[in-house]
Structure formats: structure tokens, C-alpha cells
């Protein structure tokens, strides 16, 4: 995908640009809010990474300007302002996602992927199928290889979250925020425990493992090649 990184700190910008380039993406870097508006309007980007505090035009103002110029690409705001209020202000100010510095590159990449492939909300399909796994989201039923699998509500919620993002990396933070509303980091690794429970029901005893762990990053629900 084609990414515009708006970041005035050279080292941070370089770090993000290098990482994205290494994972096969095209990256441009803008150093200020004004520059980001010019480049964003000119260059058909798939997604923007926007620092919030920029010289001149700040990040949220730049987003507002881009939107008014008809630029619809999703924007991930990257910032050191991490309180709940700041996040809410950011999201209400037009950001599509929010990541607080310091961040792990894997987290950024996963969120960018999720933004670009986010399906329109109205178009959520009722049945999701992957290999021999079928999820009926209306009746909350899971069938694998023709056999009904009984899941607890928590396990089902986790599976549907992963299944809505087949092939995408889902990080622990994304799961903590979306599934349990934890806007803080618990010291106990509760996500791993949930995933391993889910895996014991969905994957154990079947030939193909659909839920994979990406070490230090998160999880992905996918059919192995």
C-alpha cells in the first residue's frame, strides 16, 4: 500500500518509513502539516500516518483540511498525547485510529493494515467461512469440519473479531481495547490465555491450525499456504 507519513521528528519518521519499506510498502514523508495537505491532495495514498503535534498546522487541523478537500484515505494519528481525553478528541477530530507513542512497529503495521482493509460496517456478512470453519454470526454458531463447536460468549467474541480480519494481524492491544474495553495494559497476559482456550476448541484435533501466534506481535486467523 501507499503510505504518507507525516512526522516532524526525523528519526521517528525514518524509523517508520524504513519499517514500512522493508515490509513492501511505498512510503512518502511529509515534515509539516502544510506539507502533508499538499502531498495528501496530490498523491492518492491508501493511508496516512499523522503526528498530532506538528510545526504550523497541527495534525487534527491538517486532517480537517484534507477531508474538506475530498481526501478520503483513512488516517492513523500517532501521538505522545495518550490520555483517554486526547484519544477521544483525536477520533472525534477525524482520525480513524489512534496510536500512542511509544509504540511498537508491529502494532503500527497491524493497525494500518486493519484501516486499509476495514470493510464498510453495513456490509458485514452474516456467514464467514475459512477452510472448513464456518461462523454464522447471526446465530453465533461455529462449525468446523461439519461439527458444531460450543464456545463461551467470550470465546465467540474473540473468534468473530479475528474472523472479521482474516489474514490480518490483530495485536494484543487491539484485542484488549476492542473486546474488554481495557485502555490500560494489564500485567497478566490475559489475551494469550483467551486465545489458547479458543485454540483448544477451534484448532485442537484438526489437521490445519487456523489461529497463528505472531511472536511479540499478536495473532492472525488465516489458512496456511
Amino acid at each position, binding site marked *: 500500500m501507499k503510505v504518507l507519513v507525516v512526522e516532524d521528528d526525523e528519526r521517528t519518521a525514518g524509523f517508520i518509513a524504513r519499517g514500512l519499506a522493508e515490509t513492501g510498502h511505498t512510503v512518502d514523508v511529509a515534515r509539516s502539516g502544510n506539507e502533508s495537505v499538499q502531498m495528501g491532495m496530490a498523491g492518492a495514498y491508501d493511508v496516512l500516518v499523522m503526528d498530532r503535534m506538528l510545526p504550523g498546522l497541527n495534525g487534527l487541523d491538517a486532517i480537517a483540511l484534507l477531508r474538506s478537500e475530498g481526501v478520503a484515505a483513512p488516517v492513523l494519528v500517532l501521538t505522545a498525547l495518550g*490520555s*483517554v481525553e486526547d484519544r477521544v478528541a483525536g477520533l472525534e477530530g477525524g482520525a480513524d485510529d489512534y496510536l500512542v507513542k511509544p509504540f511498537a512497529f508491529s502494532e503500527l503495521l497491524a493497525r494500518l493494515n486493519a484501516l486499509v482493509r476495514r470493510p464498510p460496517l453495513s456490509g458485514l456478512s452474516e456467514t464467514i467461512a475459512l477452510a472448513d470453519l464456518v461462523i454464522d454470526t447471526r446465530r453465533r454458531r461455529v462449525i468446523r469440519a461439519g461439527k458444531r463447536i460450543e464456545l463461551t460468549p*467470550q470465546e465467540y467474541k474473540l473468534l468473530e473479531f479475528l474472523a472479521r480480519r482474516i489474514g490480518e494481524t490483530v495485536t494484543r492491544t487491539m484485542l484488549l481495547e476492542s473486546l474488554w474495553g481495557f485502555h490500560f*495494559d494489564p500485567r497478566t497476559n490475559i489475551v494469550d*490465555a*483467551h486465545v489458547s482456550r479458543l485454540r483448544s476448541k477451534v484448532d485442537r484435533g484438526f489437521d490445519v491450525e487456523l489461529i497463528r501466534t505472531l511472536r511479540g506481535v499478536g495473532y492472525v486467523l488465516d489458512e496456511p499456504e
Partner: protein
Amino acid sequence: MSLTNRSRGPAGLWQTTSVRLALLFALVFGLGTGLLLLVLDIAVGRFAEETARDALRDQVSVLIADANAEGGAALVASLREHVSGGQPERFSYLVVTPGGDRLSAGLPDAVERIKGVASIHLPVDAKEDDVESDRIEVIVLTARARDGTFIAVGRDTYALAELRQWLHRLALWGGVALVLLALLCGIAAGAVLLRRLKSVTEAAERVMSGDLSERLPSLGIGLEFDDLADTLNAMLERLEAAMEALRQVSSDVAHDLRTPLTRLRNTLEDAQSAEETERDELITEAVLETDRLLEIFGALLRLAQIEGGASRRFTDVDLAAVAADVVDAYLPAADQAGWSLTLIVSQDVRVNGDPTMLAQVIASLVDNALTHGAPGQTLRVLVARAGADAELSVEDDGPGAPAEELKHLTRRFYRLDRSRHTDGSGLGLSMVAAIASLHGGTLSITNRLPGLAVALRIPLSPS
């Protein structure tokens, strides 16, 4: 700007509340007196007029009866006799017979044109020296007897005029006295208030100049003012505590971040001189160390925000539901670690609070137990009512904490000796205590022998 020299000139006095209040009182009293007078005046006038009419009607009907019985001429003759008797007379007459006989006593000929009742104004009788105006109102009632005799009887209103005059004087002097009294009282009360307030102002100025332990004196004027002083003192108390906490934090940060930073530096130095094979491992270690540092900074920042009260987003929270969500989130992890984690809810418990923070409290306490206890233990999250409070407690049957250290547990970076080797910033309980205090509640930590119980009490929702 000088803080201590704020004396007021005459123009300043004009602006003080007491003078304004006194003026307002005077105005209100003055207006009140005027209004009262107006109402009295109207009521007295009506009453007098009605009485006069009744008397006139009686008198006229007597005269008509006489005239009908004996004829107009006889009436004129008898009236003339009566009038010339010389007694003081409140009635005045005009009688005209068709035959040309005429009696006129106190009423001008013009009243012959009146039909029924009318008020006329006549020059004041020289005898009535009490009345200040030169004309007096006379109410006249006229009628005709059967033989065509015209009869008019008038009644003057000297008595009413005198009453009115007296009322006006009373109102004027009474009003002036009341207004003066209101002014005096207002100014006196204001002076007392000003003097008391001055002592408060002086105390506040001492606080501003840096003496945070100074407290405002009680005003001694009334409950509301003492409440105000108490509230302001509570505010000062908080301010002093906050300043102290700030001093504490700065020194804590300086001391407690030194160790991990030194460790980080050592690791990086090692990496510089390490063999290629070891280097990766050392760098990974340095990254992990940095993450821990960042985590501590994040926790400090959040702690500061909570203690500053900046992030209050309170709503009506179902505490049991929040606890259930957190327990659900932790169940698999606790299970895997061999713990038995249960939630015990005895009643519906609602509080006014921040659901995310309350969830963080429970998560943090459960984290603590799981980190410091040993597998095979039980961990209970309890939500109950305790009087007007909601009580949220987390109990384990782990090793507990030495009694003499219990009160230090909520201090920043405070860690028990035996847990220094475990992960964690030493900020968890500080955060819990800060959240408790933000919710207007208290945190208590007790040894259960065996085990530790951490209980948070916050007021129930008012509804």
C-alpha cells in the same frame, strides 16, 4: 501588582457589597412604604365615600317623606328652623318648591342641575382651619318629592380629608425613618462583614506568598460563611497535599528511575563490546528494559492525571457489571496459572464513576495477587453495599504483607523486599489509591491471615 496593599478610596467603598446592599434595602423600604400608603389611601377613601352616601340616602328619604306628607313649603319652613338652630351641621341643603319657596343652606344653586349623586368642590369653610387645601369635596344626593319639590342634600368630607392628611404625614416620616434605619443597618452589617473578611483576605494573602500551611479563620457570622471557610480550608489542604505529592514524585522519579536506567546503560555497554552472537540478545534485553521504563513513565503520567482530577468522566456505573467483565477477562489466565478466581456479588451496586478506571482498579488488584501469590490459591472479587457506600474488595489467601508495611503500600515505587525481583513498577496500588480518592472514596488494605484484602469504598449513586 502588590498583593498586600489594596486599600479602597471612597469610590471603592461605593462598590463594596455592604453599601450596595444598604442602598438596595433603603430603596425597597421606601418603595414599600409608598405602596402601602397608596393602598391605604384608596381603601380609606372608598370606605368614607360609602358611609357618606348611606347617610345621605337616609337623610334624603326622611326629607322626601316629610315633603310628601306635608308639602314642599312646610318642609322648607321646618328645615329653615332646623338650620338656623346654629348647631354644627355635617349636612348642607338646597330645597326648591314648585311654588318658588327656596331654602339654601351651604349648597350653591347650581346643584339643581344634578340628578342622583355627584361630587362637587366648594371653597373651604373658614371654621375648618385644619384642612390645608382651599377647596373641599362635597357629595350631593338629589331627589324630587311627589309635588315636584327639588331636594338636594350634601355632605362634606372634612373628616376624610383630615384622615388623609394625617396618613400622608405618618407615611412620610415613617418612610424616612425606615429608609434611614435600613441604610444604617446595612452599613453596620457591612462593616462587620468587611472586618471579618479582611482577616480572611489576609490569611489568603499569606497562603499566596507561599505559606501553604496557613488556614483561613472561621468568620463567625453564619453557618454558610463558616461552610465557605471550611471548604476553602479543605481546598488548601488538598493543595498542600498535592504540592507535597509533587515534591515526593520528583524525588521518587529521580531515585527510582536511576536503577533501571543504569541497568539499560550497562546492557548497552555490554552490547558494544560483545561478540556478534551475544549482541542480538543484549539488544533485545535493552529494548525490553526500555519498554519497562516507558511503561513506568506511562503509569506515572496516568497517575498524575488521575491525581490531578483532569480526566474525570463520571457516569452512572453498574459496579457489579464492571467487575464481572474484568473477572471474565481474567478467568482463563487465572485458570491457567492454577488459581481459582470467583466473583461474589450480593446486591445491585451502582456508583457515580469512571468505568474504565474502576475496571483498572480491579484489574490491578487481580494482577497484584496473581503476580505475588503462588498457584493453587483462591482469589475472590467481592462487590457489596456497606451503608451508603459501595465496597469493592479483592481478597487472596497468599502471603499477605508485613503489618508494619501495610500503610506504605500505596506509596509510589514502594515494593516489598520479596517482590523486588518480580515485574512491576511499584505504582499499581498508588494508582488504585488515586482512583479511589478521585471517586471520593477510601482504600483499605488489611491482612487476612492468611492473605491480603484490599477494599475500595466509594459512595453509592445518589439515585
